[in-house]
């Protein structure tokens, strides 16, 4: 009782929220309930990101995913629902298939997730190969018994600079040993073109056809 890791407690709490609401998305027959459950599930996932030291990704998950994408989906629900609430009942045959699928895929994926001993958790003792930063954190953690979990947070500056092609998180020897580390300048630029194309495509489908002259097509 004395050595409870609060990091683990929070992890389990968020994990239960995430998985529980995800199951609710599957089981629910009502599209609006599904959307709400999805909001909670994705918010729980954002909490898990924060616990994994991915502060920026967690914030983006909340803002873009929960704030943007889900609102979009709910708009879709509102625009296409005929009644105030549309319900969708799946047939019993569907459920049998679903149960078989759940069984099969969980039987494959869960052993897979647990199959690598290196991934079960941090080494409690001192490991030999560590960068200086992590060793320092490790020592600090060992000094403070409360926080055994070592956090290595990636700062927003590092992410931002890697998006313009500069890697500050790697030490210089790595850079000179051979190839350049991957800076993400190209994907960062090209994804803007993608978003522009998507915008045009979505607008094309959404806008009404101007009935000026008929196409040659029947």
């Amino acid at each position, binding site marked *: 009782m004395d050595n409870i890791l609060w990091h683990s407690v929070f992890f389990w709490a968020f994990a239960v929220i995430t998985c529980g609401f995800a199951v609710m998305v599957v089981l629910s027959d009502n599209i609006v309930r599904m959307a709400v459950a999805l909001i909670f599930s994705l918010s729980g996932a954002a909490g898990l990101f924060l616990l994994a030291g991915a502060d920026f990704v967690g914030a983006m998950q909340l803002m873009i995913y929960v704030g943007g994408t889900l609102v979009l989906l709910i708009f879709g629900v509102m625009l296409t629902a005929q009644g105030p609430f549309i319900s969708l009942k799946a047939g019993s045959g569907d459920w049998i298939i679903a149960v078989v699928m759940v069984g099969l895929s969980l039987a494959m994926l869960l052993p897979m997730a647990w199959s690598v001993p290196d991934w079960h958790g941090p080494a409690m003792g001192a490991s030999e190969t560590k960068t200086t930063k992590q060793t320092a954190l490790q020592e600090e953690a060992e000094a403070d018994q409360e926080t055994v979990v070592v956090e290595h947070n990636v700062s927003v500056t590092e992410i931002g600079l890697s998006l313009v092609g500069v890697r500050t998180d790697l030490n210089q020897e790595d850079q000179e040993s051979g190839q350049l580390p991957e800076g993400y300048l190209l994907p960062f630029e090209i994804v803007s073109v*993608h978003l522009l194309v998507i915008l045009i495509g979505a607008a094309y489908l959404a806008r009404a056809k101007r009935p000026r002259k008929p196409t040659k097509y029947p």
Partner: protein
Amino acid sequence: MSFYQLIVNAKWESWASTLVYLPEIVLCLTIVILLLLRLPRWGSRISSLGIALVGSVIAFVLSIPFETTAEANPEAATTAQPVSLLQEETSPNPPDIEASSEETKAYKQPGDTIFSGLIVYDGLTIFFRQLLILFVVALLILMGLTGIPDRDSGADVFTLILGATVGFSLMVSSNHLLIAFLGVEMASVPSYVLAGTLKGRRIASEAALKFALYGAGAAGVMLYGMSLMAGALGSAHLPTMAENLAQLTANGVDDRQLVLFLGGLMILVGLAFKLSAFPFHFWCPDVFEGATAEVDAFLSVASKAAAIGLLLRFAIGISGVPGEPIEAPAAVAQATSTEEAKNTFDILAISQTEATSLTFAAQADQEKTKLEEKPVTDPDSSVVPIQDLIVFLIGLMAALTTTFGNLAAYGQTNIKRLMAYSTIAHAGYLMMPVAAAVALLSKDQAGAQEAVASVVVYLIAYFFMNLGVFAIIALLRNRIRSEEIEDYAGIVRESPGLVVCFGILMFSLIGLPPLAGFLGKFWIFAALWEAGLITLLFIGGLNTFFSIFYYLRVLKVMVLSPEPDHRSPAAIPIISWPGLYVAALTVPVAILLVFWEPIRVYSLWAAADLFQ
């Protein structure tokens, strides 16, 4: 500090990368220009087709690799020789950049990676980029001839096509999982919209919906597979992943085997969806029927070419280890080989019902034993079990895809559905040499190069054949308002020239001797023979025989059946712009065999950089 760092780190590397990335940049600029031209009032008077055409032609010219000075990079001069040979054919004056060359600032040569290792710029990249951009030029001309899309939606549709093309070019040149995923998304999402180009029609919107839902699901599964793969190998950079994988296998550490297997399988699912390979082909006929013939041509040629390029990058990138040999005790490698082989066969035996696949499994087993009896001496033998697994998976999928596509094509009454199944079958043929290349990777590099070259040749032939057929379908649709095969009855008496072209294209799709399709198929079968994949060769040959009948059935209806009374006139004289367009696509199909030698040189050059 950060901005300063940015300026200081704006290395020559980025500029040199930008220089060889110009075609894509031109395509992006064309998209922006198409968008901006709608702002001013006079903008609507400028033809968006013209802008898109000019942009893609410029991009094509820029995609021809220009030569840097020989003294700046002496060892590259030998590899670049075939390029100059090609240049004389296609472009009389390559861009002159001699003036700004300095010794310290090396220009990117084919074979380098650009943008700090994210993208590989080699012969294959150059070939695919040229093929794709040339295809876009041809497609835009076709769209100008058929009048779909109309003036209103022209700018939007061309934007989508160009955007998807940028995605295709990312796919075929990716050296990093992020680029691969970005490319797949950039290529597929505009394609979903393109499938629903005629947004007022019921079947078009249904095709777009099915495509988007299945595609989004496949992309999600693929991303999950990528996360497992990257996590298990500790990198998302393909060569680094390959090194780590070889090390893992060499050390005999197999606790990550399951993660890697499932991750690889999920990535293969995503790729199979893009290729419309057998278990994930179901979207293809529906989407092809609902979309217009022009979009079908785009999906069947450009999309398939890009997907096969990405499959090549993955399959060869992950299983071939360039660089220093890894000291592996041969016994360990052997043990894992047999063990893994057994595992795979157990897993796959569940899903195997067809006799063909069983014989194939037996054959692969035989081969494996053959391979194991031979004393393993080459240094990178630790990757052999991985290669065997990849060969088995791709080979199995190719065999099933070809067989299924050809058999299902029989019952079709709609020409676009028939061509969709034909596309599925050809995707199977295209996957076969990939399996052969991986099989030959550690045994015979020259043979593997030949196998990749056969993909190149087949794609060149496929480009002309399928674009030609879909152009004819689109042109006839504009005349007779139908895409049913029975409505093509007796069309030979109205437009004989067109039907002759159609016949040549059909014979070429079958793969009959003097035509382009034969050249491609012959090379693929030769590569299979070289790789010892005899079962696959046999299945390919058998399928060629199957395919004769349904292709010829269309031709039979066109020539022998009497015309129906209620059809609008279908006369498309060969001496007219549409007729000449079709003829221009048919002539290369007919005479490609004459240029056997330059095509051979070019395709081998394109494949060469993959094996260095």
